[in-house]
């Protein structure tokens, strides 16, 4: 916990020095088609590390498509075609020799609906480390505890690690999924509307968690909820009809947007 506090102090210090944070993701002229449907159009986004970047926009604007492209999960849909490039830490993820397994070990994902495996809480969290070859029980124990603490759910489940994760509430399940994602020690966490299936209290807990996690991870979060974006993010990108209308600091987007369409959307005139 002390490290979190330290980091939180450091962040404003960095900003006053105006040293640019390095980019985790640089998207250049990304286009994506579902068959003939042009879903993403000339996307240019530069996402910085150790920040929370929110992606907002009405349904069907391509925000989920975009976040799923960042770890190439979109490729599970057969008709998808892409052009342009997404550079993760300077390397184009669409390169032929970039193995998706390698990318997804560095880029974790939390989904819209909590999707724990029908296994014990322990096995859920230990899943990632196990597939990456960790067999030592002691190390696994440590990873599981660290990840569950990281996802702020250790105290709630520490006495029932061997129970099936399906017995937990929706909010707890989602935090187990976050813990499962932390267990692979990712660099970036992608969150695709992680609170849309949760009640307000669980939502609050996940939001607090996102704030704590951003000191050690870069977080990209798709949200349908503009208040949520305003509460938790540093930068916000507004998507509309597959294009990025505006991308700026969250303060700027919500107080003084440059584009009329952004203003209409955040003031609730459509969407």
């Amino acid at each position, binding site marked *: 916990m002390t490290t979190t506090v330290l980091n939180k102090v450091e962040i404003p210090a960095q900003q006053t020095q105006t040293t640019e944070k390095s980019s985790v993701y640089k998207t250049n002229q990304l286009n994506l088609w579902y068959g003939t449907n042009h879903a993403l159009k000339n996307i240019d986004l530069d996402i910085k590390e150790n920040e929370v970047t929110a992606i907002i926009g009405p349904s069907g604007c391509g925000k989920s498509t975009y976040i799923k492209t960042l770890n190439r*999960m979109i490729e599970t849909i057969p008709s998808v075609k892409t052009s342009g490039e997404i550079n993760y830490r300077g390397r184009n993820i669409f390169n032929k020799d970039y193995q998706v397994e390698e990318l*997804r070990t560095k880029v974790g994902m939390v989904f819209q*609906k909590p999707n724990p495996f029908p296994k014990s809480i322990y096995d859920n969290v230990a899943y990632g480390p196990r597939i990456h070859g960790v067999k030592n029980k002691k190390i696994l124990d440590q990873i599981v505890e660290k990840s569950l603490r990281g996802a702020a759910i250790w105290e709630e489940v520490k006495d029932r690690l061997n129970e099936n994760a399906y017995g937990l509430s929706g909010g707890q399940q989602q935090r187990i999924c976050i813990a499962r994602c932390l267990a692979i020690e990712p660099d970036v966490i992608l969150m695709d509307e992680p609170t849309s299936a949760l009640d307000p209290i669980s939502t609050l807990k996940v939001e607090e968690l996102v704030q704590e996690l951003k000191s050690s991870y870069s977080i990209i979060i798709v949200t349908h909820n503009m208040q949520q974006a305003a509460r938790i993010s540093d930068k916000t990108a507004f998507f509309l009809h597959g294009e990025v209308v505006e991308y700026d600091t969250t303060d700027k987007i919500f107080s003084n947007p440059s584009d009329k369409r952004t203003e209409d959307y955040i003031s609730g005139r459509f969407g």
Partner: protein
Amino acid sequence: MKYIDHQSVAANTKSRIAKNLVLKGVFFAATMFGLIVLAILLYRVITQGSGYLSVEFFLNFASRIPEQSGIKAAIVGSIYLMLVVAPVSIFLGVGTAIYLEEYAKKSKGSTFIKINISNLAGVPSVVFGLLGLTIFVRYFGLGISILAAGLTMSLLILPIIIVASQEAVRAVPKELREASYAMGATKWQTILRVVLPASIPGILTGSILALSRAIGETAPLVVLGIPTVLMFTPDGFLSTFTALPMQIYDWTLRPQVAFHHAAAAGIIVLMALLIFMNSIAVFIRNKYQKRW
């Protein structure tokens, strides 16, 4: 203006209710028809055969004297047959299902294969017997052996296992696969750790039902030329053998009534075996109910 005329509705209500009652009766009769015929059959088999069921019946070989006849060669042969059919058909069937559902890209070719697997399940078993005779007995030179018959039976029930396994694999929610892929798991790791554990009850149920079909199947064995009466038990998988349905078939063909009763006893044994296997399938299905 109203579209529903409540007076005429009231007038024809009675006839609608009567129609409902008549059809209920028709459907009940349809259900009972099958059940009654089955009950008569069971009654005949049990009254005729139960007298022959004894320890000797299991320990004796077939004999010219009905009272001394037994099913030793047949039951050992059937067990040997299952020892070939179970591993071969389950491995090939589950492997095919996993390939088609998890690995194969959606294309005209894979759709064509999927449709035809379902069609294969409807091919008469005699045709599979001819196939086995041509390929395994003659071309591969396996002779009239347990291995040849086992491979033929495996082909026969393969479509059933493939279809059941495909359904079980398809029923695993895609969210679970996504969760695994998103952590950098390969396809095989996802199949082994997520898909198979969730689908194994369905796969096992389908496989056991398919095996119970193989154990009762006669036509392919007749076509392969499996002997009906043997005075020895097989000593290996290349040895010749006889199986329960073959023994029953032979006894029913004999003119003496006493042999028909021995056949009835054989049928009781076969049915007990089938009921036992099916109840294992039901037990597995109920015990591992889906948890999502």
